[in-house]
């Protein structure tokens, strides 16, 4: 079972007058096969948190530990923009992040490409794919290393609503099938409600303001009353916490 522990995490950029506090005393525990969404307004530190969790940035103080059954956990990351190597084809892009480059890895990559219905694009270059397809390759890439924990940073925010909707469904199916720990950053409350069983609200200044579980059954349809109510509740909470500009 994967376990993420964040203790008194603090991150500041710059010095003195220019100092910007991105994260302030963040404490968080996530474990098991949960889909956790982190929502918050722009500039609240959500992406910084993910960057620290995936080793792209170092904290100013505090500690982060991501373990799988006591040992180091394998981490997969899906970015806002697909971040594919433009000069390598789809299969090579997936293989690039594989720890071992053997036949088993190739087979795994092919399986996950099939899961996102892109098995026919193995030899294509990213420029030959649409934005949505590139993002699906990015998702397959992250899943194909069979990570213990998956971090996703607003992965659908660059896509049109229809493509995003389709990809959300695909993502949910993949999560259901593989039962990973997913930490999903988004500014779209509806998206958070559709996908997650736990929603964490981040406020400006980088603090956790609310941590709630969502117990509704899957799959969730935005048209469903209970789902709509959950979304409305969270948005109201945003207002109460003074996170929405009036």
């Amino acid at each position, binding site marked *: 079972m994967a376990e993420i522990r964040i203790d008194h995490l603090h991150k500041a950029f710059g010095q003195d007058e220019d100092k910007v506090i991105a994260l302030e005393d963040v404490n968080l525990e996530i474990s098991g096969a949960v889909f956790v969404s982190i929502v918050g307004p722009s*500039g*609240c530190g959500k*992406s910084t948190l993910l960057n620290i969790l995936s080793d*792209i940035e170092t904290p100013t103080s505090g500690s982060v530990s991501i373990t799988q059954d006591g040992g180091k956990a394998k*981490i997969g990351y899906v970015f806002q*923009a697909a971040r594919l*190597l433009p000069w390598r084809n789809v299969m090579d892009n997936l293989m690039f992040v594989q720890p071992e480059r053997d036949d088993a890895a190739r087979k795994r990559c092919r399986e996950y490409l099939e899961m996102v219905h892109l098995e026919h694009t193995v030899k294509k*270059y990213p420029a030959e794919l649409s934005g949505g397809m*590139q993002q699906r390759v990015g998702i397959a890439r992250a899943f194909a290393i069979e990570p213990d924990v998956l971090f996703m*940073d607003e992965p659908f925010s660059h896509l049109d609503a229809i493509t995003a909707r389709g990809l959300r469904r695909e993502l949910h199916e993949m999560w259901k099938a593989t039962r990973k720990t997913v930490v999903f950053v988004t500014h779209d409350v509806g998206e958070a409600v559709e996908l997650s069983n736990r929603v964490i609200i981040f406020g400006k200044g980088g603090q956790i303001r609310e941590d709630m579980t969502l117990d509704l059954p899957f799959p969730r349809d935005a048209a469903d009353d209970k789902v709509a109510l959950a979304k409305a509740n969270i948005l109201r909470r945003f207002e109460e916490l003074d996170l929405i500009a009036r």
Partner: protein
Amino acid sequence: MAQTQTAGARPATFSPRRILRQRRSARVLSVVLFLLGWQLLLPVLPTALIPAPAEVLGFMWDEIRGDTLGRTTVWEAFAISLRRLFAGFTIAFLIGLPVGLLMGANRWIDRMFKDFVLVGLAMPSLVWALLTGLWFGLDSGATIITVVLAATPFVIINTLEGVRDVPRELTDMARSFHVPRTHVIRHVIFPSLMPFFFASLRYGLANGWKGLVLAEVFAATSGAGWNIRYWYDAHRAQGVIGYAFFFIIFALIVERLVFQRLSNRVFRWRPSDDVGPDELTAKELDQYGVAAGGDVAM
């Protein structure tokens, strides 16, 4: 003239309009019109020393056949020049590449060499040709050194731009997946440097060649540049113009047969363009979701 027929299409017609619309026609036509214009303008031009197109073409044809009044044939002359060019350019590359890499990677080294590189870029190759002629004597010394001096700044500047432009988003992605450093160098850094490497090759060779020809005019006794000087001294305009055309043809051959082919192979992953610059612009990188604008920081 063979034309492919698609099912249900009208039968192929030999229509002038259709021929004119083809890409190659426009280029051939421009050359034909130029030669025609040249021929027609001859009687009204101010000096008698301007040869007719036929004279120039005749001279070029003789040269190609090896029937020359010069000291060497065009083939020998170009062979000599090319040997000097490649020798000089190799040295320029061996110096320019590491300096460019270091300047791109280290701010302090960059500041140290920056002004010298700027001077090198701005200096007319003529100055190098004259100075090297004075200092290093005729032929190989002066000519090869001129190539080095003319080409090196271009190799440096394109290399350092390449190092500065390594896509951060991709190296971050690799880091988040814990990809080993050797793989990052091989699959991210090296390919991202390729367009700049090409640019340094192209501009370095182009400027090296221009410098070489000048050096051969002033400080050599052989080579393509020297040949053009020979015909100038002999007051034979068709020789000068003929050699000018040989230079143009040479440049076109190198561009089409060497650079274009190599470029098509190395950059086959790029969306197909009619003609594109070698360097990836920020806009192109953005298309692949790689530029700084692609991700929101917080």
